[in-house]
């Protein structure tokens, strides 16, 4: 019962502006999370990416197969 009351209170108090503001905040937060995820991915790639990429790529030569 207490739960329901709290939810109703929270819901009733919201104005239209405030909820779109929250939406905007959420979107911003999501954007920041994505950016942080990308940053940490790029950092991890940096750690494992082969050094001397130019020479590495140049030397990767295969014989044709099927």
């Amino acid at each position, binding site marked *: 019962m207490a739960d329901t009351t709290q939810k109703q209170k929270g819901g009733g108090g919201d104005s239209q502006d405030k909820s779109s503001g929250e939406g905007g905040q959420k979107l911003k937060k999501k954007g920041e999370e994505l950016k942080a995820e990308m940053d940490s*991915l790029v950092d991890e790639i940096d750690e494992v990416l082969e050094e001397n990429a130019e020479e590495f790529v140049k030397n990767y030569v295969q014989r044709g197969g099927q």
Partner: protein
Amino acid sequence: MAVPKVMGTEIEYGITVRNDRDFDPISSCVLLVNAYREDHDAKILWDYDQENPLADARGFQVEGEKYTPNQQENIARNKTLINGARYYVDHAHPEYSCPEVTNVRDLVIHEKAGERIVEISRREAQALLPEGAEMLVYKNNSDRKGNSYGSHENYLMDRRTSFKQIVEHLMPFFVTRQVYSGAGKVGSENRAQPCEYQLAQRSDFYETEVALDTMVKRPIINTRDEPHADREKYRRLHVIVGDANMSEYTIYLRNGATALVLSMIEDGAITRDLTLRDPVRAIKEVSHDPTCKREIQLDRGAKVTAVQLQKEFLDLALTYTASRDVDPITRDVLDKWQHVVEALERDPMELSREIDWVIKKSLIESFMERKGLDWESSQTQMLDLQYHDIRPDKGLYNLLERRGQVERITDDAAITRAIHHPPEDTRAYFRGMCLKRYAPQVFGVNWDSISFAIEDEPIKRILMAEPLKGSKVHVDDLLSTSPTAAELVKNLRA
């Protein structure tokens, strides 16, 4: 009535040894394949008597020499595994042919188990190399210098369906499925138009529509007619127009949609004329357009995008399955096919967790943006190559998987299990169990036979012309009442 779509894949891996001036691909492949150890150390032949890669599905035999290695070379180059797979040296590449499976979930599991097996053997082989030398293996299809190696799919088909019908309906499907089955590639090669990034690794290499060749002048549809099963009843469609995919989701959809379309061809359910005017040109145009908006021309004059053509096939598939009992995996394939086609229509980059070429493009673009690189940069090209590195710690696809940034179809436990266990519902079960139980007496193996050398008796060859027979249900009693190979052969005769 369509026959069950028993299927499998054959992947040729790229291989190199760094810091080894004497690097020779063939001896490195032999080292790699032989570094893989199973419980037994029996020397088992691959049975080339059963092979005929020169038979053409259009009804003739092509002249040429059949490859038959001597016994020692045969054993050095071929390993048949207890999971029912064949791991071997094909020309200058290590190749893994997964065991026959009946559904795309098992296909993903067994293709992925193949990657793990190659990686296990790479680590073992690495320990035998001189200090400083490093063996690297890539699950891709091109060195970006005009050399390509294959990744083939095989599907069981009804012999009664004419090859002409297969070609007619399959061509537009094969030209356009790369919008979700491509593994992505930076740049172009083989005298194709220049581009920054394209959908598929192999599309620059198709030079003709239909042919038997696989190594030169590659065709979109390959005519090899080697059923590895009862040739009165079946064909094995040998598909060479595909990429080596890293993404489980992509592998699942690639084989799932293809299997569905093949069943529809068998049942006469492709009722629209989707013939393309110039498939060889179109396959390159589609590959070179990551926006997926470019139109290609139908023979009847209209222009459509590859995604629209895939939508046509999907619509036909939805109609086809609406009146049939459809298993849950096929239902799931249809859902995923729909999800992917709709996303491709809106914005292909939405599929950066599902589809290989998008996953790779998204990864490369993030890196380029933060590092100020362009498509010509060596580091960009390195990212492309390293996406396919099979090492768990260095491979970039594997890195994304570990970070939970790609959709999965299965899990590590199922993949690990498939390293040691054959699928239970095809003849691969019998093959694998025979190797597990009777390896010292196994003389030779092929997809549709296994032969035994028991003391000084003549070699006994057991034929397995039905891909669905030899399953656990069929042979577990036989195996459990046959503690030795001699008893197995005796019980089979009884």
